[in-house]
């Protein structure tokens, strides 16, 4: 039982990270109906930015919470800019030309490849070790269940960011515009909502969250490399679909669920099946609820 609880705890931590990445997928999907396959690479760039910032400002040698905060902020800003750039260069021109939904999917794959390869050129293909910006120690121990301060920081940061996002989406003018665009973009445009600016803002928000996820992964799982975004990117997308893509609480629940299931499977069965289980869960859920856990059923109209 204690082992189970420990695994559960690890799973929730990992799930929080998935959830942060999944939010970016789901928000972009909500407003554009686009699967932004470059999102995993934004997360990678976030981790890499964190690596360089932490080294440049000396947080790597002097761990502190303030250092973590600064690193986090820097990476989020950098990735917000990157997300905006991707939107402007790779997606907006297609949208303005009225291209279908598939052309942006291919440019997304192109951007993802570009960032992976540029990452190998700029950062080097070898794995790097993320500096321990906060000293890892055990906070609490009940029986054999250990809770480290890194886990607490990861969870608290993830939850705080999600709460912040919830506030932005539900309580601000921008959030209302975003919901309007995601509900019906042409109608929102007619009502004077600046759709292009809302889309840009969505990319900025989503990319910043991905950057935060990158830093948090760096803290709990320090080996980072330019291809680190590929698998978590796909898994987070699965998490978003699990919850019902386009649905923000769905992405959070989907991320947590996926993190827990994966950790339990690699703990109890075998880690080789870890990557398969995410997809098995996904398919099982889709067969019973074809639009995800929280998705609204689509009715077909003639």
């Amino acid at each position, binding site marked *: 039982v204690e082992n189970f609880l420990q695994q559960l705890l690890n799973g929730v931590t990992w799930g929080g990270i998935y959830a942060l990445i999944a939010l970016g997928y789901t928000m972009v999907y909500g407003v554009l109906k686009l699967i932004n396959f470059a999102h995993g690479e934004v997360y990678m760039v976030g981790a890499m930015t964190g690596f360089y910032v932490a080294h440049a400002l000396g947080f790597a040698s002097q761990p502190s919470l303030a250092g973590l905060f600064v690193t986090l902020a820097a990476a989020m800003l950098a990735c917000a800019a990157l997300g905006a750039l991707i939107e402007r260069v790779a997606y907006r021109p*297609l949208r303005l030309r009225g291209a279908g939904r598939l052309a942006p999917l291919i440019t997304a794959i*192109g*951007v993802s490849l570009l960032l992976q390869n540029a990452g190998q050129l700029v950062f080097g293909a070898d794995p790097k070790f993320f500096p321990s910006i906060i000293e890892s120690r055990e906070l609490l121990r009940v029986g054999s269940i250990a809770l480290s301060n890194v886990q607490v920081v990861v969870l608290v940061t993830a939850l705080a960011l999600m709460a912040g996002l919830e506030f932005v989406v539900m309580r601000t003018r921008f959030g209302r515009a975003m919901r309007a665009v995601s509900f019906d973009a042409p109608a929102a445009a007619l009502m004077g909502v600046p759709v292009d600016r809302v889309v840009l803002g969505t990319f900025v928000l989503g990319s910043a969250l991905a950057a935060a996820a990158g830093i948090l992964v760096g803290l709990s799982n320090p080996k980072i490399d330019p291809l680190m975004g590929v698998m978590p990117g796909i898994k987070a997308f699965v998490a978003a679909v699990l919850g019902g893509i386009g649905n923000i609480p769905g992405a959070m629940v989907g991320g947590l669920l996926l993190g827990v299931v994966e950790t339990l499977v690699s703990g109890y069965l075998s880690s080789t099946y870890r990557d*398969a289980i995410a997809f098995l869960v*996904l*398919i099982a859920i889709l*067969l019973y609820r074809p639009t995800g856990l929280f998705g609204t059923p689509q009715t077909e109209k*003639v």
Partner: protein
Amino acid sequence: VRARLLLVAGLALLVAADLALPRLLNPYYLTILTRIGVAVLAAASLQLVNGFTGQFSIGHAGFMAVGAYVSAALSVYAGADWLAGLSGALPAPLARGLYFPLPLLAGGAAAALAGFVVGIPALRLRGDYLAIATLGFGEIIRIAILNVDSVGGARGFSLASPSQPGLDLRYEGLGAIYAVVALSVGVIARLVYATGGLAFRAVREDEIAAEAVGVATTRVKVEAFVVSSFFAGVAGALFAHSEGYVHTNSFSFIRSFEVVVFVVLGGLGSISGAILAATVLTAAPELLRGLGEWRMILYSLLLIVTMLLRPQGLLGQRELVPSWLRRAAREPHGAP
């Protein structure tokens, strides 16, 4: 009569090509040309589902993996003995030529079966949910194979038979490989451009309207999926038997994405477009090899820029076909 003449001429050309090409070209070019053939077949087969039937599948690599591994296992565990027996009775090239179609058909059949099993539940889903489910099935297939020890697991699987140690199970005849590719693409083209093929496009354009005029939409979708998987399996089997070594890493979702890129970049609903894109995009990284580490960066930029300039794909829905082939396709079996 003309069709038969064409067939004989084609066969003669193939034999000549198989004999001449290995002497004319160095093995590097032969390998690239083979890979182009595999890519073309993969792209054309996916076009049937994604371009003509309008169902978006991004798990094609899973079916290629089934074809590759089943055909490789057949060759290693049984085919090697048969081939050795045949070679004893017949001249070696003839024996190889006779044996070669067998693993291809087996790989295709196994992949078609997998496509059927996956297609029945997956095709109930729509749009992006279908896409992600096919992606999931593709990955599950890959990881399942990764955990089968008799086909090498994480070590990969070499086409070397334990019972016939000296026997080379690879098949590198470029002429025969391209014949298989051409035949398969021909079958796909006949399927979608025959009158019955209208059903695929009807489902793509408007499922409800298609249903209303009596198209059994579910059946058509599953049919497209199974045929597409069959040829993906053949492509995988070709890949396994030309490389002589397979590894599950060659069949990850990245490979699936690559095939989707061929199909969309070439133009959804255009077989010749898919062939064009598969050829160019498979050759491009090799042509750019002189650029060193900038190669893949340029490749991805090329992809982005092309898509920005031609959002409808290189050929849109048009086909680029020489007129004699078009006529031959319309009047099969040498009709007057």
